[in-house]
Structure formats: C-alpha cells, structure tokens
C-alpha cells in the first residue's frame, strides 16, 4: 500500500478521535440550547471550573487558600489528605449541580420572558465572572490531572497495523477512552430523554416552553436539571482535555473548537454534535495533512470555521438541526 495512503489512514483515524473530543464540548452547548434556547457562552468556563474542582478536591486543596492567606496572614494550602478519584468525581459533579442551581436562582429566574439576546449576554457575564472566580478558588497554576486514564500510543493497534501494512498507526489510548466515554454518554442521554419522566419533561420544554408550563412542568426545575447535565458533560470534557494539557484557565478555549461543530451538526441535535465533531475532526486533520504543508501549515484553527461556513450556506440549521420556519 502506498506510504501516503497509510499516512492518510492514520490521520483520518486520529481525526475521528479528535472529533470525539470536540463533540464532548459541543454536547454541553446542545443540551442547554435545546432545552432553553440559550447559547451558553460560558460552557468553556464550566469545563474549566469542573476540572479545577475535580483536581482541587482530589488533591485536598483548600478552596480560596490564596484569598484566606492574604486576608488572615495564614499559610494554608492543603487539608493534608487526598480523595479517591471516584469520590472526587462525585464531589465535582455535585459542585456542578450546585453551580446549576445558583445560575438558575440568581440569573435565569430573573430573565424569564426576556429576549434570547439578553440571556446570551447573561452567559457572557457568567463567563467573565467564572474566569475570575475559578482561579480565585483554586489558583492559577497548571494543575496536573491524574484520574488513572491510560495515555500514549496503543500498542495493540501499533503492532497490528505494523503486521498488516508494515507501518504502525499511532492512536492515543486517551482518545480511545474518550470515544468510549462519549458513546456511553450519548447513549445515557438518549435513554434519559426517551424513557424517564424528567427526560420527557425536558423534551416538552424544548418543544414549547408555554405548552410545557401549561401542563404543570416546572420550568425552573428543568433548567436546573439541564444545566446540571451540561455541567456533568463539562466535567467529562474537562477530564479528557485536562489529562492532555493539565488543568488551567486556557482549557476554556476548547469551546472555540465546539462552535464550528455546532454550526455543522446543528444546535439542537445530540447526534448532530457527535457527527459534526467527527466531520470537523477528520476534515481539519486531513486538510492539514494534504494542504497544510503547501500553505504554511497550522490550518486547523481556521479550516473548521471555513467548513462550517460552507455548510451554513447550504444548510443554515446544520446537518441535524430543526429547520426554522417563521410565519409573519
């Protein structure tokens, strides 16, 4: 088999894996947009806050230690214990539920009935607030995230492909884990929305807020629920991305990768987020492989947006989004 074809196959596989990671971030956007029509600008910061909380709890870090030390002249940093990973994930998940409750109680509740743009602006405010609050709580250092996920080349794939083609493919173990987790997450979300009472209520709110209210569904409860789920999805995304780079404030930038995925897959479709992520992932990696060297490289940053733009021209609602029909 020609060498370039083998390389292209390896790049495609890695693109699929990268796409799964993009999709994990995009899922959080979709959940909130679907249930409330809000484009949550702060989703990237939810990823950061969730991951920071996980590491902080796991390593026994004292929240707001820097602030406490500055005010009281103390020198406290750690409780002196570490917390098992599973327990730390549960605590971080609970923290995200608390954040969802705070957001609903102190922001969204006061904005019911306001135009979408007002809600969008509120999420921009949330982004800025959390951008300061998260480092204030957990510090600005790069936090090493270790939840026991394997990283590095998958030996089985490397050996098998070498035996087949004479060239071993590189696939990161972490990416394989991310793909499995994403599959489980999407399955769980679909089952939840199809077969549970709360899931059906969530879909009802997504279809029509007023109609849902008229049959006794609590809009406030649904909002807390959906922001909690988005918070949990953010935690999962934070674990995957944080394992690669350490947890730091710039993790919020992964949200930039989710935007073209959303444009392509549609803002209201969970499968759309996954398919969109895969298309973007494969597209940008293949483009960089084939065209990148001819145009100076580093094409990933803009290629995803150009691809999304092309889709927007022909299908503004995205591949799986609902067609918007407005009657005058």
């Amino acid at each position, binding site marked *: 088999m020609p060498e370039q074809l083998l390389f292209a196959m390896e*790049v495609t596989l890695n693109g699929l894996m*990268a796409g799964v990671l993009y999709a994990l971030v995009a899922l959080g956007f979709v959940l909130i947009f679907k249930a409330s029509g809000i484009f949550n600008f702060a989703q990237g910061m939810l990823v950061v806050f969730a991951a920071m909380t996980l590491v902080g709890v796991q390593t026994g870090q004292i929240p707001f230690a820097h602030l406490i030390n500055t005010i009281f002249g103390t020198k406290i940093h750690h409780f002196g214990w570490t917390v098992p990973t599973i327990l730390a994930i549960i605590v971080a998940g609970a923290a995200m539920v608390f954040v969802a409750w705070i957001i609903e109680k102190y922001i969204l509740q006061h904005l019911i009935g306001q135009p979408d743009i007002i809600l969008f602006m509120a999420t921009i405010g949330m982004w800025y607030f959390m951008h300061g609050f998260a480092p204030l709580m957990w510090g600005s250092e790069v936090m090493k995230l270790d939840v026991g996920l394997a990283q590095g080349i998958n030996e089985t794939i490397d050996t098998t492909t070498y035996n087949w083609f004479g060239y071993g493919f*590189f696939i990161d173990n972490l990416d394989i884990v991310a793909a499995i987790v994403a599959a489980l997450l999407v399955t769980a979300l679909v089952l939840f929305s199809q077969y549970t009472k709360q899931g059906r209520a969530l879909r009802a709110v997504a279809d029509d807020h007023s109609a849902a209210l008229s049959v006794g569904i609590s809009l406030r409860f649904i909002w807390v629920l959906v922001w909690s789920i988005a918070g949990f999805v953010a935690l999962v995304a934070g674990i995957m991305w944080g394992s690669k*780079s*350490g947890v730091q404030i*710039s993790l919020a930038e992964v949200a930039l990768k989710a935007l073209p995925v959303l444009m392509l897959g549609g803002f209201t479709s969970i499968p759309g987020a996954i398919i969109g992520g895969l298309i973007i992932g494969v597209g940008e990696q293949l483009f960089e492989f084939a065209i990148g060297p001819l145009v100076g490289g580093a094409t990933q940053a803009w290629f995803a947006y150009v691809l999304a733009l092309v889709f927007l021209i022909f299908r503004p609602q995205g591949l799986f989004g609902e067609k918007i029909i407005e009657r005058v």
Partner: protein
Amino acid sequence: MTFKRVAAASVAALMVASPVMADLVFPSLSYRTGPFAAGGIPYADGFADYMTLLNERDGGIGGVAVSTPECETAYNTEKGVECYEATKGEGALAYNPLSTGITYQLIPKATADDIPLYTPGYGRTSAANGNVFSHVFNFPANYWNGASAAINHVLDLNGGDLKGKKIVLLHFNGAYGKEPIPTLTKLGEKHGYDLTTIPIDYPGQEQKAQWLQIRREKPDYVLFWGWGVMNQVAIQEAANIRYPMDQFIGVWWSGAEHDVKPAGEKATGYKAMTFHGVGSDYPVFGDLQKYVVDAGKAAGDGSNVGTVIYNRGVYAAMMLAEAAKNAQEIHGVKDITSAQMRDGLEQLEITNARMAELGMEGFGPEFKVSCANHGGPGAIAIQQWDGAAGKWSLITDFSGSDMDVIQPLIDADSAAYAAENKIDPQCN
C-alpha cells in the same frame, strides 16, 4: 512660644538639609490572570521579591527605597500599553513589559518619553543594536542567540557535524514563534542540516497533526518555541509518540516546571535553553527566604521561590537594580531620572565578582553592555528535566552563540527599522 519657634525652625532646617527621596520606581507590567497566568505569576513574584529584599536588607538602592507598582496586563497588548501610560507619570525609571507584543508597541513611545525598556530574553531581537534602539536593552540573550545555542548544543552532541541531519522547529504561529526561523535557516546553510518548520496556532491544545508529522518524518532533533498551554500539550504529545525527550529542546519560555509536570515522569530528559541558573542553591535565595518570605513580605505565597520563571524575575530585577546603582554612581545622585537610568543600563558591567557579592555566583554569565551592544553576550546554557526528582539541572555551562551568523541579521533588521523610522545612529 520661643521653644515652639525653635522646634519649628529646626524641623524646617532638617527638611531643607536632607532632600526628600522619592522611591526608585520600576513598574511591574504583570499578568496574574488569563491563559498565561501560570508563567506570569512566578515572574512577577520573583521581580517584586528581589526589590523587596533590597529594601529590607540593604535599605533600598543607594539608600533610596524601591517600589514596583503592579499593573495587570493579562498578557494583552492593549492593556499593556494602558498600563504604561497609567504608570509612567509615577516616576517610572524603566519598564520590563514581559510581552513581545507590548514591547513592540512601547519601543517608540518609551524612546520618545526617554524611559528605557528592559526586555531580557523576549521582545524585538534586533534591539540588541543599541546604535538604533537607544532605549531598548535585551541582554543577556535574545531569541537568535537561543536558536544558535540550540544548534551549538546539537553540534556538540554530534561531534560538530550536522550534515544530513533533520531538525524540526515546532513553533507558535506568530511573531514570537517565527523569530528563530531566519537564524536557523542561515545556520542550516552553514552546517548542512535540513530544517522543517511546523507551526502551531494559538492556543495549541490540539497538536495531533503536528506530532503525527514529526512521527512520520523522524527528525533527529525537535526545537520548540511555545508558550502557555502549547508547552504542556507538546511535551505530552512528544511522550505519547515516544519521541526521545533528550532530542527535544525548548526555548526558555518552554522550560518551566509547570510545562513538564503534567506529563509526569515521561517528560524526563526534556531539555530547555536558559540564560540564568536553575534551582535555589544560591545564597541570594537564602536571603529571599529570610528577609522576604519568612517576614511575610513576599508578593506570592513563597511556593515559587527557586522555580525557573521566579528565578527569571529575580534575575531581571537584579539587572535593573544594578543598573540603577550604576546610574547613581555615574551621575553622583541618589534620586535618578529615567534618562540617567538609561545611562546606567548602557554602561552596566556584570562581573563574576559582583555576582558573587550579590549571592548569585554562577547564576548568569559576566558581560558588559555598550552603546552599540544592548544585547549582551548571548550566553546560554542547557537545562534538563528529571521527572523522578522533579527538578531541572544545568547540563552545560553558559556559552556564546554564533555571532558571525546572528550579527548580520541584527544589523539588517535594525537598519530597516532605522530607515523606516528615520533614526540616526546614536553611537560614535
């Protein structure tokens, strides 16, 4: 009544006799927030702590207290310029903008305001030509020195022969990351290696394509110009593809503890260039601990003392303090102006004896600044990470770079700047 008059006259006489000393002001354009805060915090802490040490231990510089008012830039160029405008009226003697972008904006402003800029290891490389850049000082090393030092190190490892070797420059896709390309290209022509440049766009959280390319091309060495999250991801990806870490060499902005720790022990062997010492095994750090950290006067919580970026802040502060002392001696005044501070920088001489007096023997090279040479010796050492011990070690001495290649590049770039801005040479 008479007693009151005498007392008042005495106080007045004292006030006239002893001139009122204003602080020596070195504004700190820091970034403790934003995506690069992990690097900005220890630098700002090291800078402030060294000046605090001078105040607490020595009573300031020449008996005049030092102040370092901080202004938060978040590594944002516009905010950096705002910080400069907001603080220059406080009697600023010099600026260390801590950002190449901010430096580029401040070069014409600071020159017009007669305030020197000190940009060690960053900023405009050709500012090393003091003949054109009268108010910019970037000693002891710049990016082109770094590129040459990396190649010198690789030459040493290969018995002085790089013919046919493949070297990749993995770099941030911006002005900073592209800085070494001309030098590496010229050095490639001289030494016969094959250079491939692979850019990474900001922020650099996804580098799969770049590392797959490196895996395919199997370069002998990868040189790296990154910053922020780009560093941690690159080192992790290098470990993932099992690239030999001792053939992966970063510039000094890609060689801090927080860059290697997320990859754990797999980062062992990674190398980085440095223009100052590593660790806290120098007497000055004992003083910093005693007079600043233990006294509760540290800018941070003291946990960064001895880390790479903290040390860089200490080193920068030491240079400015020595230049201020030099200016006081040159002009015979304690309360110096920014113009006099510029003279102090331009006539600065750092000797090994003076470094020993400062408790920093071996922390950096000795050198002398001159009117024409604002860039210093370009002497750089290589540090290597030991993941098990969790620390960096210097594995080479400080040694110079290939000025036969670098000087013509500096001259050409600064000449273009001089022509564009109609600058006459300042040195005769």
